[in-house]
């Protein structure tokens, strides 16, 4: 671990301030190197950054880093795979202690991650497989997401129904959710998929609404729409409302945002349930897993952040209108008990 004196001097003041303001645990209680957290620097190298999910993920990373008192450096490649690899090299050159790789392409990140590992830097990866034994994977379990939503669909609608399915192939999380959907169709032969559609043309919700409108017109007997991505679900909901089929179709989805909550809370909304992992929690877990490695502990080859099922009934009964209220009213959504050794300081309000 080599931190140049220059960086140390430059960052010194700010880091002192950070460590004073944050951190619920006393630095002395933490294992090295966190007994002196101001000297620890970690980098977040991002591939995707625009959108609510990624904003929330970043805020999770930031709060957990602050709780630990370490210095965080954010490098954002804005969907430029080559640039992202360069940024890893940049982080290596800066002499950071740990790197979180957030999304990216296996092809471009595999070598970059290896170079970081070779430089003695601890690396974790979120939602990108860098094919490296030394790099633990942080995952939100897409299979679990799909499973929770579909189990709720079966609970609500029985084991046989006519379904519409929104899917675009070639996008890794959607592909994993698709595997679960196929397992369910096999397991419950009563589920009949009468239409499959989907598009990533943006604004996605608008484009999907146009498609879904055609689908429900052609297949007015659909009772369940499985839209395992909230933009898809939003589009399907618009189409179902426009077609006047709000009461006869139920939408099951994955992911959540404040505007999704509003859409689900609408009176009689067709969007009845979604399964979601709190992206902020994923961000926190990413930092905690990295911290464990820095402290010499093993978080395991893959760190899975479990999802939460959120139903319309939950939102209405507990009067939840935004993400903050969701976190405070559904504790399992606000915090995942993953990568939490005793010494690990948690952000305020998390237990």
């Amino acid at each position, binding site marked *: 671990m080599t931190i140049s004196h220059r960086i140390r001097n430059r960052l010194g003041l700010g880091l002192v301030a950070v460590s004073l303001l944050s951190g619920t645990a006393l630095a002395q209680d933490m294992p090295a190197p966190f007994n002196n957290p101001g000297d620890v620097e970690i980098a977040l190298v991002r591939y995707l950054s625009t959108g609510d999910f990624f*904003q929330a993920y970043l805020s999770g990373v930031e709060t957990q880093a602050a709780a630990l008192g370490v210095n965080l450096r954010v490098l954002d490649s804005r969907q430029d795979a080559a640039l992202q690899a360069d940024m890893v090299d940049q982080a290596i050159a800066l002499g950071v202690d740990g790197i979180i790789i957030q999304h990216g392409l296996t092809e471009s990140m595999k070598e970059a991650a290896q170079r970081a590992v070779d430089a003695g830097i601890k690396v974790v990866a979120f939602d990108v497989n860098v094919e490296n034994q030394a790099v633990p994977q942080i995952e939100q379990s897409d299979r679990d997401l799909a499973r929770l939503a579909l189990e709720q669909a079966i609970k609500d609608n029985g084991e046989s129904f006519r379904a519409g399915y929104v899917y675009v192939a070639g996008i890794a999380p959607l592909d994993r959710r698709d595997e679960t959907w196929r397992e369910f169709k096999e397991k419950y032969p009563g589920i009949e998929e009468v239409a499959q559609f989907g598009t990533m043309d943006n*604004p996605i919700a608008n484009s999907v609404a146009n498609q879904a409108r055609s689908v429900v*017109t052609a297949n007015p007997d659909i009772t369940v729409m499985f839209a395992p991505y909230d933009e898809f679900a939003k589009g399907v909901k618009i189409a179902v409302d426009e077609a006047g089929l709000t009461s006869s179709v139920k939408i099951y989805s994955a992911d959540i945002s404040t*505007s999704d909550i*509003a859409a689900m809370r609408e009176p009689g909304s067709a969007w009845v349930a979604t399964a979601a992992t709190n992206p902020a929690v994923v961000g926190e877990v990413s930092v905690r897993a990295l911290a464990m490695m820095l402290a010499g502990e093993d978080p395991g080859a893959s760190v899975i952040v479990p999802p939460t099922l959120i139903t319309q009934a939950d939102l209405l009964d507990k009067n939840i*209108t935004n993400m903050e209220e969701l976190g405070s009213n559904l504790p399992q959504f606000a915090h995942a008990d993953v990568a939490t050794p005793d010494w690990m300081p948690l952000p305020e309000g998390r237990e």
Partner: protein
Amino acid sequence: MTETLATTPTARPRAPLNLRNVLIRYGFVTLLLGLIIFFSAMTRGFASPQSAVFVLQSVSITGILALGVTATLVVGGFDLSIGSVATTAMMASSYVMVVMGGDAVTATLACLAIGVVVGLINGVLIVYMRVPDLLATLGMMFLLVGLQRIPTEGRSIATGMSMPDGSVANGTFSPEFLALGRHRFDFFLPSLLPVSVVVLIALAVVIWFFLEHTRFGRMMYAVGSNERAAQLAGAPVNAYKIGAYVISGVFASIGGILLAARLGRGDIASGNNLLLDAVAAALIGFAVLGASKPNAFGTAIGALFVGVLLQGLTMMNAPYYTQDFVKGAVLVVALVFTFALSKRGKR
């Protein structure tokens, strides 16, 4: 040849009504009718008033954008910024209502103002700064994609969202505004015509009348066909060009308003797909009735064509990538109609 004076006609007679000319003139309209019949036969529920209205609704936003870009094509320009103008207007209306707590009128006016301002800037860049139209509007596109993220630091806007300063935005989309996306007028059948379709039809008629039947429209065509000749015929060429970009900007912002009203939130989006679909509709319009030039009627038919195709294909369960393929194929065929077959295109 008989003994003739030198002034005897040497003009070539007009092209006779042969197969090629019939094809150029009515090919696309026939194809559209054929498609409608095909889809009606192949799918359940295609041939119904609701379905017809839905086709219009699905193309209303791109159609409105396409009508706007038609105005810039008429003066020989191009506007790549329309997609991002629409999404910026969507963000702006959401911001006005959700964050600032404004009402529907304020939100709408804010959007229209954005359209006018962007159009003016585009026009001034192109006319007075002599930036080529594609480059000026490309720059504007990037600028707007970035600008719409600044107030919320890249978050989408919805009621209850937390702002960069930690406060929570408590405004809501006003019901009147949402009605723009959701209300339906009775038309033969109860609750048949959505507002967006009415707006599309109204704007199509307005821009068609403006371009075809007013002297301003005619002058815009003259500017697009021979700028210097138009100037020497007394046309204030610069004003017409700037005006065309303002029309384009305003139409795009109207599209953005309808988009926001339909989605009920402000989504971060580049609007590139809106741009591409709109441009495709306008270019397909060149081929309608053998016009070989940008025209409002053709643009409307072009948009309808894309809408019919996409709805029909979706109803037949065709995956999305085949739809892109078909859209592209239609565009290529339309361009062949325009440039290779028509006699104007030859020159």
